[in-house]
């Protein structure tokens, strides 16, 4: 049995790099998890600005979303990571240089800004899908505007947004592979390291299997969460 396995999988290589791959999975999940949540928080004011009656915040939010959705994430990551180096003096003057010299922080910042733009568009769609009667009813009950938004509009908007948000999370996991290009050892980073040392192509296939498991796992977890969060909408 171990002979058959050994002919398919380089067990020595697995023993040497296996633990590193697990670390890589943790790095990928942390990066995506934190930036997805922070991006979600940032998406709410951006979506509201997109829907604002005032044309100034509307234009600002539109430009923000258009820039981050219209340019490659790779270019954005390079812009922040290498661009920060050019602004070193300015960052040192305000004491932020320790943050910006760190590739991890730059990746986290770029991913947060990027996903916030996508999530804001999803949220905007969700908010617009809430019938106006809901808002009017809350108003008639004497709820202040912020409470109407927090307790009546946002929860219903999130139900509509749940499925596209799940897709966005999966896209983020896949897109996170590019942080390996700025010296971060996520799954892809560990794979590139292992390949550059062993020249054994199968590490790329291990990475493929890991990403498929990650994506499929997240997809199923999200589906369970979605079923649970929308169980009040299902006919009995």
């Amino acid at each position, binding site marked *: 049995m171990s002979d058959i396995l050994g002919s398919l999988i380089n067990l020595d290589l697995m023993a040497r790099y296996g633990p590193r791959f697990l670390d890589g999975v943790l790095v990928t999940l942390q990066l995506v998890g934190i930036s997805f949540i922070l991006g979600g928080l940032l998406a709410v004011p951006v979506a509201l600005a997109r829907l604002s009656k005032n044309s100034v915040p509307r234009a600002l939010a539109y430009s923000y979303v258009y820039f981050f959705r219209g340019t490659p994430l*790779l270019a954005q990551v390079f812009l922040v990571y290498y661009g920060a180096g050019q602004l070193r003096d300015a960052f040192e003057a305000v004491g932020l240089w320790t943050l910006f010299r760190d590739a991890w922080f730059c990746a986290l910042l770029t991913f947060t800004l990027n996903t916030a733009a996508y999530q804001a568009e999803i949220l905007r769609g969700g908010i617009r899908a809430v019938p106006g009667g809901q808002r009017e009813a809350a108003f008639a009950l004497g709820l202040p505007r912020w409470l109407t938004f927090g307790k009546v509009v946002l929860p219903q908007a999130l139900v509509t947004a749940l499925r596209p948000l799940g897709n966005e999370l999966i896209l983020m996991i896949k897109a996170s592979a590019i942080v390996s290009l700025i010296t971060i050892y996520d799954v892809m980073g560990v794979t590139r390291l292992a390949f550059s040392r062993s020249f054994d*192509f199968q590490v790329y296939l291990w990475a493929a299997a890991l990403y498929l498991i990650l994506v499929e796992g997240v997809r199923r977890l999200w589906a369970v969460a979605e079923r649970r969060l929308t169980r009040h909408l299902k006919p009995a």
Partner: protein
Amino acid sequence: MSYYLDLLSFGPDGWGDELAQGALVTIALAVLTLPFGLMLGLLVALGQRSANRLARNAAIAFTTVFRGLPELLTLFIVYYGGQLLLQKLASVVGYGAQVQVNSFLAGFVALGLVLAAFSSEVWVGALNAIPNGQREAARALGLSARLSFRLVVLPQLVRVALPGLGNNWLVLLKDTSLVSTIALADLMRQTNIAVGSTKEPLFFYLVACLVYLFFSMLSGGALGWLEARTSRGQARRPA
């Protein structure tokens, strides 16, 4: 200000011509990949709806894998894996020299596979949106299965699928930046080289972003025109 204008000038001192060449490579790669990916995607979509179980399972496996893998990983697998495969084939026929995979071709294949996987979902949705009565009517008029697909289903399919396919195109355009990692001299790689030589990352990456943004804008305009054109036979709904 003139310093930055000089950086973008054409000629030996500026990077304008290098960046323009890179932009052309980016566009060429995206434009050539588009028909390949869309056709393969349509085939996969037809496979998913096929009565043949084998074809159905193969189509589902294809979309699951290429939608689930990071585009960068797909690119590396095609590039390095293709190299390995060609090397083996070459040694079988007794050709011992080093074989190099063309990075444009690797980008074309990898991005095409990804585009096929994502566009197949759009095609499936569009195929489902066309009422069966259309096919039945075409058959009742005596059109063969192939003709009724080409003359009746396909023209409607394009109209229904266009918005989704337009999104696929915009994603493809941005994904081409990944080929810079396998040494293809696209816009991103030329920008990297310019940054390495001038130490002006902020300026050059911003310029690259603006060029991508410009392409996105052009595409948006073209897609709007195409959508209007393909649906000109549709009666406008009363407002």
